[in-house]
């Protein structure tokens, strides 16, 4: 049986940033195996398919919907299978969390505190932002010890008014949609089709210049579906996977699961993970659009898809009672169908934090490779936050010439999968410790946003990438 120093499952953000740091610290003769369920479906071929030119590769990887059983069809859990994981479908929003997001229990008496705090993560936030060449502003509501690598995107006319009124509570959104050409990426030109960026402005694992998967110490195995781990007392011993219809097992000193919060949990459950919280607490944010008609004011000039983030209803003592809301100023090419008022409107996406609820979960399915995913509804804490927003928004937007505000139906997803292997300092209250090591199996890392202790309103990718850098830096 082949033996490795490290075996990693998955090639998305969580695995890539973990490996990046690990390889900086590992000896020249380290042996690493990466198991990727899918294959590389290059960006150029994705574009070809979207133009209708048929690359022949569109069926290379399974559609995400075929890979699990969704018990609630009104709730969606999108992701991308294949090399680079969901870097191939994310929209590139990278705000940091606020320091208080990590202290929900001690500050607001809600849910639990994270075992890691903002100050400890700050250098890794900075490193992740530099690796992704994030565009962002000088002044932000969260503290930073370094500047963003790229200048901020341009505000729209509406954002300028809101920024003037609210200062660093209304900022140019920190984003991995480049504001200038950098490396293999072009500047964003507001195509607003970010899942597959038409001009390759968005950071992906494929266009990154992080030398990870071509490092001579790393052996890649594509088409390798991890099924379970052999767990023995406090250690993971072997990893089992299926490739070309054949089951194979390899051993390693250390394992890292970096698939996603559905499949990391599923692999652990298939392995007989003894922790009672594994798979429990699945969740994400809750969001909807507010469409605001403006009198005699054009909303123009923004240089990316989401031009700004608003924090006016985010942090404060209200979080003792109801959820924080992060606002996004959405600059898609919306049109108002009224003579002379074609762009007299603004669309804001309102994104609310949620709390983990144990009945929302990933469980073993009849087919061990197709986990069952159950989600009931957002918490009352979140829905109270929605009511607060609807009360406060007219006053907050009174700096604009508002004609009317209309709320659209909630989205079926915010496209994030969180919380199935949550971190906690107390091994009874969480599956992982602050270094993403399993509390029971001490050579097993479980990476990614499944580790999130609570579900802040922010997009998770930057934070999960920083957590991977931190975990590898502190552990090797």
């Amino acid at each position, binding site marked *: 049986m082949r033996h490795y120093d490290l075996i990693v499952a998955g090639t998305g953000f969580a695995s890539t940033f973990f490996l990046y740091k690990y390889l900086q610290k590992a000896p020249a003769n380290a042996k690493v195996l990466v198991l990727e369920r899918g294959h590389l479906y290059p960006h150029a071929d994705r574009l070809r398919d979207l133009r209708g030119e048929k690359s022949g590769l569109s069926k290379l990887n399974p559609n995400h919907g075929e890979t699990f059983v969704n018990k609630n069809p009104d709730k969606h859990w999108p992701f991308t299978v294949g090399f680079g994981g969901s870097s191939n479908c994310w929209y590139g929003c990278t705000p940091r969390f606020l320091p208080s997001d990590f202290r929900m229990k001690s500050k607001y008496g809600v849910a639990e505190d994270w075992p890691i705090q903002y100050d400890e993560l700050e250098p890794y936030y900075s490193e992740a932002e530099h690796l992704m060449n994030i565009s962002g502003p000088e002044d932000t509501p969260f503290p930073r010890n370094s500047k963003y690598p790229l200048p901020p995107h341009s505000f729209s006319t509406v954002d300028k008014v809101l920024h003037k009124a609210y200062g660093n509570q209304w900022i140019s959104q920190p984003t991995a949609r480049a504001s200038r050409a950098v490396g293999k990426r072009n500047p964003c030109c507001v195509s607003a089709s970010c899942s597959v960026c038409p001009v390759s402005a968005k950071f992906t694992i494929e266009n990154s210049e992080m030398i990870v998967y071509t490092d001579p110490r790393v052996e890649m195995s594509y088409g390798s579906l991890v099924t379970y781990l052999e767990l023995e007392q406090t250690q993971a011993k072997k990893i089992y996977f299926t490739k070309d219809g054949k089951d194979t097992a390899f051993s390693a000193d250390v394992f890292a699961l970096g698939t996603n919060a559905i499949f990391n949990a599923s692999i652990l459950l298939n392995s007989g993970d003894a922790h009672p919280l594994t798979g429990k607490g699945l969740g994400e944010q809750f969001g909807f659009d507010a469409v605001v008609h403006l009198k005699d004011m054009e*909303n123009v000039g923004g240089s990316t898809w989401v031009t700004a983030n608003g924090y006016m209803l985010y942090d404060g003592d209200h979080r003792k009672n109801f959820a924080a809301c992060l606002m996004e100023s959405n600059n898609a090419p919306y049109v108002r169908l009224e003579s002379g008022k074609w762009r007299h409107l603004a669309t804001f996406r309102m994104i609310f934090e949620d709390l983990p609820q144990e009945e929302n979960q990933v469980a073993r399915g009849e087919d061990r490779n197709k986990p069952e995913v159950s989600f009931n509804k957002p918490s009352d804490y979140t829905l109270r936050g929605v009511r607060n927003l609807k009360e406060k928004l007219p006053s907050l937007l009174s700096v604009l010439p508002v004609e009317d505000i209309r709320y659209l139906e909630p989205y079926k997803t915010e496209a994030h999968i969180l919380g199935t292997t949550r971190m906690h300092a107390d091994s009874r209250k969480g599956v992982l410790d602050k270094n993403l090591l399993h509390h029971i199996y001490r050579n097993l890392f479980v990476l990614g946003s499944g580790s999130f202790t609570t579900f802040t309103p922010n997009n998770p990718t930057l934070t999960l990438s920083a957590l991977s850098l931190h975990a590898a830096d502190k552990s090797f």
Partner: protein
Amino acid sequence: MKRRKFLTIAGIGGVVAALASFRFITNPFENVAKGIIKSELDYLKLDEEGLDRFVADYSKLKDRNYKLTMKGYSLFGINSEKSGKVHQLVSAYLLSSDFFQNKMDEGRTIRYVGLYDPYLRPCAHPFSHAQYA
């Protein structure tokens, strides 16, 4: 109500319902879409031939369920105020035309230039920094 009057009203109602159903089934989506766009933008001058090409191109992107839904909306007079799908259709037409290139000049005839598709024509957002520096 006398029996004869009731039967007359019921008969007329039946004929109207049958005609509406017949029209619902036989009227092609392209005609329905064209009708919706013309009704929503009745204060603008639209190039008829270009509008025909737009609805033909747009129709190729849409499935049967979408087309049936839009036929239903048309039958019951549901407009862009009440339906996101209707709003999206009319917006797609305008974005696929020269209307925004001509700075929303409502006096000019609007001509179709090709489906608004960021994969065929990236960087074409009519309200972005490129147009409004």
